[in-house]
C-alpha cells in the first residue's frame, strides 16, 4: 500500500516527527553525560556559595561536610541554609591511594582523571546547546511551538498535551535550559572576558555556579519524573514510538 502515506495518514500514525526523535536521543546521551560529569566536578569541591568569591573557610549556602572525619566511616552532613542532615548512609566511598574519599553522588570511576571530566562536560554541553538551538529553530519554523506547547494556541494535535504539560515543556525549554547555558558560560574566563555583564545577571561568579548546580538538579528532577512516567505508561510502546515515530496503541501520552 505504497500510497497510504498520504499527508493525512501520516499525521494520524506519526506522533513524533524525526527531528523530535533525534533531539530526544541527543538529549538522552547529552543530559546523562552532563549530569554525571557535573557530579564529578561537584565532588571535587562540594560547596556552593553566594556572591563573587567563595572557597573553603567561607560560609556556604550548601555544603557536604565530614563532621567526624576520624570515625570509620566518617559522619557526613549536608548543610543547606543552616539546616543540617546526616547523610552518612547515602555516601559512597572511593579509596584514593589509601586515603578514603567520600562522595554523595556520581563518584568518578576507577582510574579516572578529574582533568578530563571537564572536557567530557563540555562535550555534553556542545551536544546539548547545539541540539537546543537547532530544535528551537525547528520549533518556531515548523509551527510546532504554537501547535503543541503554546497554552490555548493549539490545533487538533495539541489535545494530547494538557496545560500543565505545555507549561512544563515551555518553562523547561525557554527558562531552565537558557538558565543552565548562561550560568555555565559565566563560569568561563574567556566568555566573561568578552561579556563581563554576565556576572551582573547572577550577582557574582559563585552565585552563577550555585544557580548552575541548582538548575541542573531541577533538570535531573524533570528527567526522573519523565523516566517514571515512561515506566508507568508502558516502556516498550513508548520506546518504539520514540525510535520509529509511530504512535503507541494506547496510553503514554505526553511523557
Amino acid at each position, binding site marked *: 500500500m505504497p500510497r497510504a502515506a498520504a499527508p493525512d495518514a501520516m499525521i494520524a500514525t506519526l506522533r513524533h516527527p524525526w527531528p523530535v526523535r533525534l533531539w530526544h536521543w541527543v538529549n538522552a546521551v547529552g543530559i546523562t553525560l552532563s549530569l554525571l560529569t557535573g557530579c564529578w566536578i561537584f565532588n571535587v569541591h562540594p560547596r556552593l556559595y553566594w556572591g563573587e568569591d567563595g572557597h573553603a573557610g567561607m560560609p556556604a549556602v550548601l555544603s557536604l561536610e565530614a563532621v567526624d572525619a576520624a570515625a570509620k566511616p566518617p559522619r557526613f552532613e549536608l548543610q543547606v541554609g543552616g539546616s543540617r542532615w546526616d547523610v552518612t548512609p547515602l555516601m559512597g566511598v572511593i579509596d584514593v591511594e589509601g586515603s578514603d574519599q567520600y562522595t554523595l553522588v556520581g563518584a568518578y570511576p576507577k582510574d579516572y582523571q578529574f582533568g578530563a571530566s571537564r572536557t567530557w562536560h563540555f562535550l555534553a554541553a556542545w551536544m546539548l546547546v547545539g541540539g537546543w538551538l537547532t530544535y528551537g529553530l525547528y520549533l518556531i519554523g515548523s509551527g510546532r511551538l504554537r501547535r503543541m506547547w503554546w497554552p490555548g494556541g493549539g490545533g487538533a494535535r495539541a489535545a494530547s498535551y494538557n496545560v500543565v504539560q505545555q507549561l512544563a515543556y515551555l518553562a523547561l525549554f525557554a527558562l531552565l535550559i537558557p538558565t543552565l547555558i548562561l550560568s555555565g558560560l559565566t563560569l568561563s574566563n574567556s566568555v566573561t*572576558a568578552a561579556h563581563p555583564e554576565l556576572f551582573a545577571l547572577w550577582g557574582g561568579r559563585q552565585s552563577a555556579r550555585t544557580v548552575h548546580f541548582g538548575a541542573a538538579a531541577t533538570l535531573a528532577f524533570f528527567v526522573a519524573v519523565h523516566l517514571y512516567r515512561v515506566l508507568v505508561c508502558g516502556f516498550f510502546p513508548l520506546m518504539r514510538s520514540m525510535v520509529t515515530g509511530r504512535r503507541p496503541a494506547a496510553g503514554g501520552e505526553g511523557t
Partner: protein
Amino acid sequence: MSRAKRGRTSGMSRRALVGSMLSTGLLAGCGRIDESAPGAAMLDLTDRLTRRAERLLLSGRPLVRELSSAQISATFPTNGTVLPKGDGYQRLLEGEFRDWRLRVDGLVAQPLALSLAELRAMPARTQITMHNCDEGWSAVGQWTGVQLSRVLDRCAPRLNARYVVFHCMDVQEADGAPYYESIDLLDAVHPQTILAYGLNGAALTVGHGAPLRLRVELQIGYKNAKYVDRIELVERLSAIGRGRGGWWEDFDRAPWYAGQ
C-alpha cells in the same frame, strides 16, 4: 587544582555505593574510556572546538574584569605545592631569593638571567582579579608584577618561537616530575599576563609561589604556575615533559587551553 588532595585515583575501591553505582554502570568495565582511541579523539575534538570558540570570543582582545580593593578576599587559599621540597629551594628562601635568577632562554636572540631586584625595577602592573580554580572555588587578590610582554621584549624572541614554557622549582610527588606550564604568544603578550612577585601589597608568600609566579588572567587556576625560575621559548610543546604542555595536562589530561 589541589595536587596533594586529589592525587592519583588508582587503587580506588568501593564499599557503600550510592553514587558510584551510576558511574560504575556507565563506565566501569569500559576500562579507561579517555585512553581508548575513540574516547581520546572525542576529547581532543571537544578541546579543539572549545578553544576555537574561545579564540573567536577573544578576537577583540578584551581585558578580564578587574575588581575593587573592597572585593579582595579576606583569605586567599593556597593550593597544590605550598612549599617546594629540597635543599635548593630552602637555601634560596633563607637568602631571601637574592641568589635566585629568572632564566629566559630557548628560541631567543638574547638569553636573560634576571634577579628579583631587576624584575622589581621594571615597570610594574597591579591588578585585582579573580582566581578561578577548576575545582570550582574562586578568590580575589591584588597581584603586582611585571608584564610578561616586557620580559619578552628584552629577550628578543626568534621568529619561530610560538609558545612560552614556565619551568617551576616544585617537583610533584605523584610522578616525580617538576611542575611546568605553557601558553602561546597571544596570551603571553596580553596586558594582564604578568610575572607576579606581590600579592595584596606584600611580597609573594611561599604558599603562593615565591619568589615569582605566572598570572595569566585569561585562563584558570592550574595555568598560573608558581615557583617559576625559567622561561623557555619553544616552537612546539611535544618535547617538554610528556608533551601535552603542562604538568596537569600530562598527568590528568587537563585541557591545555584553560579559559573555560
